[in-house]
């Protein structure tokens, strides 16, 4: 799976899931409150019934001819009676109620129902019913249901996203295969061109032809460089690094020599200060790609008849040009694949993407200093 494809799947999944979760949360919250409302209603109705039961009992106690009156007590609820001036007459409540104006309310885990009475049996103008609130057990059920729904949604959305992305993935694979095949087919002709130019005897050519040959060589070097980049990108994920102690000094000299023809076309002066025997443990092909990309960028984007300064020490490699430079914003976006600021120059905009992947792998720090119309300096430190 491609990195970008993975990212797209993650984004779409995140979007789909968050909106679905929001919907589920809204539905479940509404359902929870609806159930709560329903429970409150049924609780109130039950307490109302208890209140009528108490009223009946109060009536029979009031009518009794006993010397003393036994206040009615119940198994399922507690009660209290108040006179018309809201003075307590008798109570079996666990928590005394102060406000007799509310009809139905909760205090802690108890629910209360207050009703007024007439005639006033035993002098009671208000009855208060207290009952332990029936606990609402739907929260656990809801959470379990929500988890099941979320899991199903995740699985469905994953397959949905894959299904939606399938045509795109097929197209990408087709394009990828095409580039792979094309790249492979490019190798032989480029090698042939470069090898044959090298074998030409300059003495057999006049100055004009020699110039043309140099141009062909430079163009072939550029194409070869591009080929190497493409191969690197295409095989990057499949080939593991073959790290070895590299003589960076020798390698850098070699690569500068490789780009000399290209620099000569633009009449560039390459000033190289290379410390001898600088070693670095890395994959040769990758470091070659790293140096080639930095050098080719410098050559490509510098102005004609300017200087390119290259410095190598045991901890640093810097390449500076005197080109048109980049803005702060452009520097920040430079590592994006296919990002090209100057469309007049060739290339796919994959150079800095390659640089980034290599410096990340070897923990190399990159610092790009650039001033518009003055030039750019790329410093690698390790």
């Amino acid at each position, binding site marked *: 799976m491609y990195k970008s494809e993975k990212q797209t799947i993650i984004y779409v999944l995140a979007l789909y899931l968050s909106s679905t979760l929001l919907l589920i949360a809204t539905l479940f919250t509404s359902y929870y409150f609806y159930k709560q409302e329903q429970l409150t209603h049924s609780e109130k109705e039950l307490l109302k019934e208890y209140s009528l039961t108490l009223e009946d009992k109060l009536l029979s106690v009031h009518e009794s001819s006993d010397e003393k009156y036994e206040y009615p007590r119940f198994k399922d609820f507690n009660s209290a009676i108040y006179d018309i001036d809201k003075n307590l007459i008798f109570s079996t409540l666990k928590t005394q109620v102060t406000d007799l104006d509310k009809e139905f309310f909760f205090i802690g885990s108890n629910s209360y129902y207050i009703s007024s009475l007439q005639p006033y049996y*035993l002098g009671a103008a208000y009855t208060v019913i207290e009952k332990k609130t029936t606990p609402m057990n739907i929260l656990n059920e809801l959470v379990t249901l929500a988890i099941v729904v979320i899991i199903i949604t995740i699985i469905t959305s994953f397959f949905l996203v894959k299904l939606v992305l399938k045509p795109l993935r097929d197209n990408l694979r087709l394009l990828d295969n095409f580039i792979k095949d094309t790249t492979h087919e490019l190798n032989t002709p480029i090698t042939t061109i470069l090898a044959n130019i090298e074998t030409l005897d300059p003495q057999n050519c006049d100055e004009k032809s020699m110039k043309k040959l140099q141009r062909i060589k430079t163009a072939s070097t550029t194409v070869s460089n591009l080929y190497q980049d493409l191969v690197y990108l295409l095989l990057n994920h499949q080939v593991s690094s073959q790290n070895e102690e590299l003589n960076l000094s020798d390698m850098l000299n070699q690569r500068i020599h490789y780009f000399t023809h290209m620099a000569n076309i633009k009449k560039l002066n390459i000033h190289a200060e290379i410390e001898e025997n600088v070693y670095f443990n890395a994959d040769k092909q990758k470091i070659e790609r790293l140096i080639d990309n930095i050098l080719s960028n410098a050559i490509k984007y510098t102005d004609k008849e300017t200087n390119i300064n290259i410095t190598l020490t045991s901890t640093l490699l810097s390449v500076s040009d005197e080109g048109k430079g980049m803005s702060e914003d452009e520097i920040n976006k430079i590592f994006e694949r296919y990002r090209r600021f100057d469309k007049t120059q060739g290339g796919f905009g994959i150079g800095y993407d390659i640089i980034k992947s290599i410096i990340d792998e070897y923990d190399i720090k990159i610092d790009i200093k650039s001033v518009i119309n003055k030039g750019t300096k790329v410093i690698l430190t390790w």
Partner: protein
Amino acid sequence: MVRTTIFIILFSSILGASSFEQNCLNCHGDDFKFNMMMKKYTLKYSSEKKIKKAIFEYLKNPTFEKSILPVGYLNRFGIKEKTSLDDKLLKEMIDVYYDKFNMNSKLY
């Protein structure tokens, strides 16, 4: 000090009770349904304050409207005469009556 207080309370309650006998039981007699009357007042007026006020107003100026007795009873026996007691004594007697017969104190 405690003894004196207890003595005063006992004395006044005996005095109150004896004046209740003199001012109320004298006419109503022992068979008068004080309990029943209190039940009727409680059923209609609920609180101590309201019951005492209703009794006081009725005894001062008895009318058909103020009476809590059934109409048939009133038609047969008529309403009672106005009290001859002064307001202060009447209130005291009502207090004694309420203390002796109120329903709240008999609830358990």
